[in-house]
């Protein structure tokens, strides 16, 4: 296992971007490091939610974070999206160390996410919800917006075209003018994905995208995730409990338990890792 790990993490020097990548089981070329988390620790008062975790996320890969309940997966995602600031450790993004940031600044750096519990804007239509995903791309001033003239109008039209592409891609054309509050659960999840995709992120964080879905909905969502990765080359980090889905979708998996990393590698390798098996089946600690 040690040897296998080494082939992925071939450059540990400060600030250096390793750019040698690797080739996945299904023959896709994965690029260099997009994000690297170094010795991340997160404490809430006396509670240590994440303990000294390091891993990297490479351009174009689908990276899964798994682990039993309370392992610290969502906290990890919240650190990446800037919602929590780690107590210790460094976060490197696109070859530069990322200082502590507000979540909206992180979003503007090209990191979009979805939420475990749907967090759509219930009072708005599907179209408006997806358009909010483009807000980081819209720069028109307030006067132009008030007059609906010049830059504001041009931006509305140009961004609408981008949003329509995403709507097409996720096959939600028929509901684009429907208020989000009226939609069933599965579609809401899809709209949330659309909102994240509309931002054209370089990195997409999915927090349990398949929670509470039936088999068909899971299949649809899996196909969309693969298509997004394939078509736009978006790097995807996902948390998911359905092991079948995780093992099928992801290129590499980080396994967490009690705030610690207990495994990291391709699905097949992780599946046979004794620590991981113990964590899931339960042994005396």
């Amino acid at each position, binding site marked *: 296992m040690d040897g296998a790990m080494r082939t992925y993490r071939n450059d540990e020097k400060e600030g250096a971007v390793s750019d040698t990548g690797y080739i996945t089981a299904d023959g896709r070329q994965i690029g260099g490091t997009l994000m690297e988390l170094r010795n991340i620790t997160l404490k809430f008062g006396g509670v240590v939610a994440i303990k000294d975790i390091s891993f990297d996320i490479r351009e174009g890969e689908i990276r899964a974070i798994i682990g039993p309940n309370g392992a610290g997966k969502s906290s990890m995602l919240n650190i990446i999206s800037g*919602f929590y600031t780690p107590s210790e450790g460094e976060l490197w993004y696109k070859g530069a160390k990322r200082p502590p940031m*507000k*979540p909206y600044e992180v979003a503007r750096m090209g990191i979009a996410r979805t939420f475990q519990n749907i967090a759509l*804007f219930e*009072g708005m239509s599907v179209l408006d919800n997806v358009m*909010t995903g483009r807000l980081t791309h819209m720069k028109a001033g307030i006067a132009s*917006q008030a007059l*609906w003239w010049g830059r504001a109008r041009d931006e509305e039209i140009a961004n609408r075209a981008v949003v329509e592409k995403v709507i097409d891609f996720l096959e939600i054309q028929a509901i684009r003018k429907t208020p989000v509050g009226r939609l069933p659960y599965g579609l809401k999840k899809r709209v949330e994905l659309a909102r994240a995709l509309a931002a054209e992120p370089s990195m997409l964080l999915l927090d349990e995208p398949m929670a509470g879905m039936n088999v068909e909905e899971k299949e649809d969502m899996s196909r969309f995730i693969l298509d997004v990765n394939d078509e736009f080359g978006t790097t995807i980090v996902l948390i998911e409990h359905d092991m079948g889905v995780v093992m099928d979708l992801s290129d590499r998996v980080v396994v967490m338990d009690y705030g610690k990393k207990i495994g990291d590698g391709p699905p097949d390798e992780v599946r046979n890792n004794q620590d991981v098996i113990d964590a899931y089946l339960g042994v005396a600690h």
Partner: protein
Amino acid sequence: MLYRTAGQFKTSYQADQALFPVRQDAVLLAIILAFAWGGLPLLASEFAFQTLLIPILIYSLAALGLNLLTGFAGQLSLGTAAFMGVGAYACYKMVTLMPWMNPVVAILLSGGFSAGVGVAFGIPSLRIKGFYLAIATLAAQFFLVWLFEKWGWLYNYNASGAIQVPNLTMFGIYVSGPQADSRVQYYVVLAVVMLMTWMCINLTRGTLGRTWKATRDMDIAAELIGINLMRSKLTAFAVSSYVVGVAGALFVFMWRGAAEPNLFDIPLSFRILFIAIIGGLGSVMGNYLGAILIVGLPVVLGTVPEALGIPISSATVEHLNVMIVGALIVFFLIIEPHGLARLWALIREKLIIWPFPH
């Protein structure tokens, strides 16, 4: 049948994003506007101008300003009247310091002062929400009314402590003060209200409106998709206070003619909040429907029974008015929290598919 949308195809995003994607809406509005510009001024009496037309427009605009903040951005405010006061006093100071100034320009500029004050009192919204924010805006209400009373410079040290609107002309016609004609004032108010409404519609359907609505619906998600909550809330306070300030300047200069500090006290704030709630939070048109109801109801109660020969004292009318408005507010909060605007939206939806059920 009248509202059939079949056959109206959009071939560009621009057409789909037009102000009135449905042709009947545009026609309906054109009829209303033609009536407001051409029909009403010919038909209306002096009494109708002073008790109905002008106040309805001004109250609508004030409610629209409040609605931007409370209905669209989700920040509850109880200080509307005080911000109207800021607009009115700013306008008064401008026209007395610079008598050559065009009164409409002064009215539009006075909103800027109100916006500045609104932003200052909006800063607590970055930390607190809901009822607690409402209490913080009450501080603005009390402080500003106190300031209008104590700061003599604001009312040019008048012995009465009130501001008296001077006679102001625009292109040789009196538009404010005792010599102004109600019809002229009505046209000025109508023009300003139309302009402001059009800009507010544009703001609420564009980027800023989506930012506000996202902040209102789920602030954590809004921040994680890249919305700077501080900017979003403070722009809401600024734009809302601007509109409210312009409404306040119109309120005094085009309607009341004079103002004392206590005119801008809490009852006025609540009156405007009621208009916004009954009309529909998060709607532009609702403010007009709400204002027609709240301003029109006492007039109807005061004149109709008399015209029918039913003996009813003015005190009874007053009581009836309070009871009916109170009952309506309770009714709307329970049955239709989205107000009259929602009722109209439902009727419109039904009309579009009529005579079929789906």
